[in-house]
């Protein structure tokens, strides 16, 4: 493990404006995550986990505070710049897989490459890389299947391959096993462990203790604040 910092946030705040009412979702979150860490974020429903993940994933901007991703301040970037960051540096895995329904597995996996300046256009290379990644997640024989022809666990594996296609510096997963039975959940966790082993930085939200405890570090969030940051992998 190196000392290179991938994520550093400083007093991140997010306040949602619901008409007249202000709903604070994050009240000043400061965390630092090193390259190669596998981090689980836990906390009760409504504590702000997804809000934090969306900001870390550059899908949203904080109301206040700083966010440095891979040494770049991304808290003040515009929408197009954030899109480029998402494309080049981040891989996002959602609870509900979020695959495009009418596209095959391999097409879903290549999707981020189409929006990548360096990769776009080279169809052969894109397809080769996608097939390789699908092989790694154990779907080498299902590359032309559409999402509706795949189980939940298989769909999530396609989503993982998609998250990796542009070789991101950070993989974010918001309850990746939330919709899955325990067998599929374990398969997904195995894949994430393998990724971690090969040096990926992974931040994952989960509700389940036994899954969180498989990681090295658990960050507990409550009411938009970091309640506990346990680097031993035990709460």
């Amino acid at each position, binding site marked *: 493990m190196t000392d290179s910092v991938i994520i550093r946030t400083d007093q991140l705040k997010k306040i949602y404006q619901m008409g007249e009412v202000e709903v604070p979702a994050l009240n000043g979150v400061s965390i630092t995550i090193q390259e190669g860490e596998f981090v689980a974020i836990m906390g009760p429903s409504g504590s702000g986990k997804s809000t934090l993940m969306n900001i870390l994933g550059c899908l949203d901007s904080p109301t206040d505070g700083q966010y440095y991703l891979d040494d770049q301040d991304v808290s003040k970037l515009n929408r197009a710049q954030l899109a480029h960051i998402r494309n080049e540096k981040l891989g996002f895995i959602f609870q509900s897989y*979020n695959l495009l329904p009418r596209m095959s597995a391999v097409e879903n996996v290549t999707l*981020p490459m189409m*929006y990548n300046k360096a990769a776009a256009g080279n169809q052969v290379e894109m397809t080769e890389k996608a097939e390789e990644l699908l092989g790694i997640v154990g779907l080498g024989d299902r590359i032309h299947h559409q999402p509706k022809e795949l189980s939940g666990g298989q769909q999530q594996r396609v989503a993982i391959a998609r998250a990796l296609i542009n070789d991101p510096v950070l993989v974010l997963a918001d309850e990746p096993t939330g919709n899955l039975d325990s067998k599929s959940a374990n398969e997904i966790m195995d894949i994430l462990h393998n990724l971690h082993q090969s040096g990926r930085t992974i931040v994952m939200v989960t509700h389940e203790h036994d899954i969180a405890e498989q990681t090295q570090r658990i960050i507990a969030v409550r009411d938009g604040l970091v309640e506990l940051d346990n680097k031993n992998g035990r709460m």
Partner: protein
Amino acid sequence: MKIIDVIKVASRSLTSNKLRSMLTMLGIIIGVAAVIIMIAVSSGTETAIANQINSLGANLVFVMSSFSQGGAGGGMATSSGGLVYSDADAIANSVPHVAGVAVEQTTTQTIKYGNIVLEDVSILGTTPDFTKVREIEVEEGRFLNDQELERSTRTAILGATIAKELFGDTYPIGQKISVGTLKLTVVGVFEEKGLVSGVDYDARVYVPITLVFDKLMNSQFSRIAGDRVRMIYVTVDDKENIDDVILQINLLLSKLHDVPLESPDFQISTQQDIIQTQSATTESFRILLAWVAGVSLIVGGIGIMNIMLVSVTERTREIGIRQAVGATPQDIQSQFLTEALILSLVGGLTGIIFGISGSWVFSRFGDMPTVVDPISIVLAFGSAAAVGILFGYLPANKAAKLDPIVALRHE
């Protein structure tokens, strides 16, 4: 995102819902086809009218009587004015480049044969040159000759329709018909010529103009008017000399009639003038048609906008997914704009095909002359593209403005 990928993605999402895409294009197809067909029909009609007018004599100059505006030198005699029979001779004898001259004076009479009575038939008094000048052929018998003109012989040549109505299957030549109070011998029947700029050449009876002067103008005024003629036709030997001939006739007749050049008691026009007057009427009709077609294009564009807006809402989640993996607002906008553009361009091309084949069907089976104007194709296709961009912009912009998180949570 590469342009080629944008086009692929757009066409893929369009083909995944073929029926809807087709119905959306229908508006543009109809609009474009309508523009092309309407322009083809109106320019075809115009060409046909011009051809018809030209078919009644080449290089023709029309000299018509008109009432003088009361020129300075004009007394009663000239201001009631107009052309007289001798003007024709004067033109024939002293204006160079004149190849033929015919005169015409009309009156309306009741004609009878046996127990068939035709009322209000146009009787056209003219001279033997008429057939040559107006390029109209006698089908049976012959036309007037100089002798008959000189002696105002009671002879008549019938238009094709009149001949059919009076005689049916009977051979008309040599028969006697009554025109007003006169009995005339039929010596010829014209070929069919049809309706040209509102005049039915087949529903007329042609007689020596001298007969009209002597016997058929029955009012007191007309008798005083004497050998007044309505129109003198002048054929010019060559197209190039038309302007010169017009000038010469102007000079000659103003002098003969003793009227100032700037307010003559006659009017000279050419076939070109007549074609232009005709065009002016079809022109306004054409503008109206163009508006109707243009409006249908706009309606087609609104159809595209409508469907694209629905599509953006339906595919909000897809938009969110694309944004999450790195699509910029610009990428999303291009995708939807391209979809709208493909719809309108494919619709436009289909419309052009339908427009051209529709024009062909109209001329082939609808008995309507059509001329497909290449400009109209460019115009129609260009407006279809413009409609696509214009009406695709709002939905594309709506899609691009979607917030990724909101879009991902949609459904």
